[in-house]
C-alpha cells in the first residue's frame, strides 16, 4: 500500500507504523481475537497513550508489537519499525530488536524482576549481550542509568536483590533496564497500576522526563484515562481489540467523539465529584472475545446505538485534523471543551 502514499509522506515516515494488526490466541474455548485490526503510528519523540477497559487487548497488542506472544497465538498485519517489518523477522533478528530498539516495561512492578538475580546483572545483561559492552563499562553505565531514573545511592543498589527495594524503586529499576540499550521506543504497559498514588506520581513524572530528555518515543498503556491524559501527545482508545477513537490527547480529552470514550470519562470518579451522587455508568461489559458481535462492538452497551449499529461495523473515520473515531453516530463536538474532562482542581485553584 506504500504506493498509495503521497510522496511527501516518505520523508516523515513514522518510527512505528502498525497496519491492520491482528493477534489471535487459541484457547480451548475458541479463538480469542484479542487484537483485531489495529492500525496506528508513533512518530519519533512522541508519546502515545493507549487506554481501554481491562481485557480490551492493550497488553496483547503491546506484546504483539515486540513479538512476545503467548503460546498458540498468531499475528497478522504489518508492524513497520524503522522501515523493517517486525512480524516477519526471524527469532534471531527479533531478539536484536528487543531491548536495543524497542524496550518494554511490563504491567505490575517487581514481577518483571527476577527475584533471585542481583539488580546489577539484570541491568547489565541486556547491554552486554546487545551492545557487547564490557563488564566494567556496563557497570558504569548501570550506575548512570540508576542515577538517571532517580535511584539514590546507585552503587549500593546494584548489589541489591529486587526484594530489598521498595515498590517504587523496583519500578525505577525496571525502567532503567528498559532504557539500558537506549531504545528508540519504550512501551510501558500499565507501569503504575499496582503502585500507590504518591509513587505513581513519581514514576509518571520520570517516564515523561526520560522520554523528553532522550528524545525517545513512548507508548504508555493504562486503563486509567487520567494517567494518560497529562503525559502523552496522542491517545488511542481501545475497545474489544480495536481502536474506538484516536487523536491528539487534547482533542480526545477535551472533545471526545466516541460514546465509549465519553462514558469512560464520565465513570471516572473525580476528586470534586459530589458526595452521594451516583456515578455515570457504562452498562454491561465487554463482549466475549471469542464471539465478537457483528456490527459495532460497542453497540450493545451504547445508549445512542441505532438499529444500523448492530449490523454496520464502523471504521475509524476522521472527525478532525488529527482525530479519528470509529462510530456511525459520533457525539457532537462539545461547544465548551472542558465540560467532560472533569479533572478539575479539587482545591478549586
Amino acid at each position, binding site marked *: 500500500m506504500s504506493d498509495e502514499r503521497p510522496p511527501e509522506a516518505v520523508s516523515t515516515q513514522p518510527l512505528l507504523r502498525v497496519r491492520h494488526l491482528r493477534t489471535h490466541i487459541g484457547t480451548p474455548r475458541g479463538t480469542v481475537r484479542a487484537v483485531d485490526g489495529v492500525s496506528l503510528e508513533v512518530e519519533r519523540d512522541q508519546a502515545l497513550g493507549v487506554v481501554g477497559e481491562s481485557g480490551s487487548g492493550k497488553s496483547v497488542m503491546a506484546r504483539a508489537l515486540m513479538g512476545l506472544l503467548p503460546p498458540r497465538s498468531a499475528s497478522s498485519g504489518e508492524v513497520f519499525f524503522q522501515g523493517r517489518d517486525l512480524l516477519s523477522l526471524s527469532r534471531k533478528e527479533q*531478539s536484536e530488536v*528487543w531491548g536495543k530498539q524497542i524496550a*518494554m516495561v511490563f504491567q*505490575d512492578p517487581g514481577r*518483571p524482576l527476577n*527475584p533471585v*538475580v542481583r539488580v546489577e546483572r539484570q541491568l547489565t*545483561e541486556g547491554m552486554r*549481550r546487545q551492545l557487547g559492552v564490557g563488564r566494567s563499562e556496563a557497570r558504569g553505565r548501570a550506575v548512570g542509568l540508576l542515577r538517571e531514573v532517580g535511584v539514590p545511592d546507585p552503587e549500593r543498589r546494584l548489589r541489591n536483590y529486587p*526484594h530489598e527495594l521498595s515498590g517504587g524503586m523496583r519500578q525505577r529499576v525496571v525502567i532503567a533496564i528498559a532504557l539500558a540499550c537506549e531504545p528508540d521506543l519504550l512501551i510501558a504497559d500499565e507501569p503504575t497500576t499496582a503502585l500507590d498514588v504518591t509513587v505513581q506520581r513519581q514514576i509518571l513524572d520520570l517516564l515523561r522526563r526520560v522520554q523528553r530528555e532522550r528524545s525517545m518515543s513512548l507508548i504508555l498503556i493504562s486503563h486509567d484515562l487520567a494517567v494518560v491524559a497529562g503525559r502523552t501527545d496522542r491517545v488511542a482508545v481501545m475497545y474489544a481489540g480495536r481502536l474506538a477513537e484516536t487523536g491528539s490527547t487534547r482533542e480526545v480529552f477535551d472533545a471526545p467523539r466516541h460514546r465509549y470514550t465519553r462514558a469512560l470519562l464520565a465513570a471516572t470518579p473525580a476528586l470534586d465529584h459530589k458526595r452521594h451522587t451516583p456515578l455515570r455508568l457504562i452498562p454491561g461489559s465487554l463482549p466475549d472475545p471469542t464471539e465478537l458481535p457483528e456490527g459495532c462492538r460497542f453497540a450493545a452497551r451504547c445508549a445512542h446505538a441505532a438499529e444500523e449499529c448492530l449490523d454496520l461495523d464502523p471504521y475509524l473515520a476522521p472527525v478532525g485534523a488529527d482525530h479519528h473515531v470509529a462510530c456511525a453516530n459520533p457525539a457532537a463536538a462539545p461547544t465548551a471543551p472542558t465540560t467532560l474532562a472533569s479533572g478539575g482542581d479539587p482545591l478549586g485553584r
Partner: protein
Amino acid sequence: MVLPVVRRVGRSLLVVLLVTMGVTLLLSLAPGSVAEVVLGPDATPETVGAMETQLGLDQPLWGQYWDWLTAAAQGDLGNSPVTGQSVSTAIVERLPVTLQLAAMALVLALAVAVLLAVASAVRPGSPVDRLINAVSSVFLSVPAFIAGPVLIYFFALQLGWFPVTGWSPASEGIGANLRGAVLPTVAIALTEIAAFHRLLRTDLIGTLGEDFVGAARAKGVSGTYVMFRHALRPSSFSLITLAGINLGRLIGGTVIVETLFTLPGLGQLLASAITSRDVVTVQGIVVFIAVVYVMVNMLVDLSYGLIDPRVRKAAKA
C-alpha cells in the same frame, strides 16, 4: 539470631531421639534374639539365656534404651555382638561406599533431570516433551532390582565395559573405583531421574510463564541464557527439597543395589543387622542415618537462602 539455630538443632535432636526410640520399640517386637543368632542353631536355652543376660537383653526395654542412649550421647555406639566389631568402625568402613553411591547417583540424576526438564519445558506438549515424559515413565516403572540385572546383562556381560560386581575403594585407584561404581549408580539414578524430571519440569513451566522471564527475553538475551541464568534457579526449590530427602533416604536405602552388585555399603550392613536382630548395630546406623538426614535437611534449608535471597519460610516446603 542465635535462637533459631538453637531451636533448629533442638528439633533435630528430637527427631533423632524419636527415630531411635521407634527403632528400639520396633525391633523389640520382632521374634528371635541376637543371642540365638550368635550362638547358632545348636545353642541350648541356658547358653542363650546367659548371653542375653550378658548383653543386658533381659532388662526392661526402656532400661536397655536408656543405657544405649547415655552411651551413645558420649559417642559410644557399642560393639556388635554378632561381628564383635565396634559399630562406629563398621559405619565408618561402609560409609565411603554408600556416600559415594548416593552422591554420584544424585549428581547424575540431577544433571540428567535438569537437561531433560529443560528440554521438556521449552515446549510443553511438543513431541520432544512427550518422548521425554514417556522415557521418564519407563524409568519410574523400572525398579532398581530389574534395572540392575538388565544393566549388568548389557554393559557388563555383553559389552564388558564394567565389572559385574565388586567394589574397589577409591584409595586403590580412582579409575577402578569409578568403573565399579558406574552401573550401581545408574541403577539407583534411573528412578531419581524420573522423579526429579517430573518435578522440575512442572516448576520450570511455571517459572517460564512468569513476567520476569518474558522481561529477560525482551532484553534480547538468548533463550538458553534465560533458561539457565534466569529460570532454572527459582524453579529448583522443590527439586532441592526432594533431592535432600532422597539423599537422606539413599544413605541406607540402597540395599537392593548393594546386594545385586555386592557392594559393602551401609544398606547391606543394616539389612543383615536387622535380620540377625543386632539391635546395637541397627541403632547405631539409624542414629547415623537420622543425623545425616536432619543435617542434609538443614543444608537444604540453608540452600533456599542461596537460591532465593528472600529466604522463604521453611514452612512452605
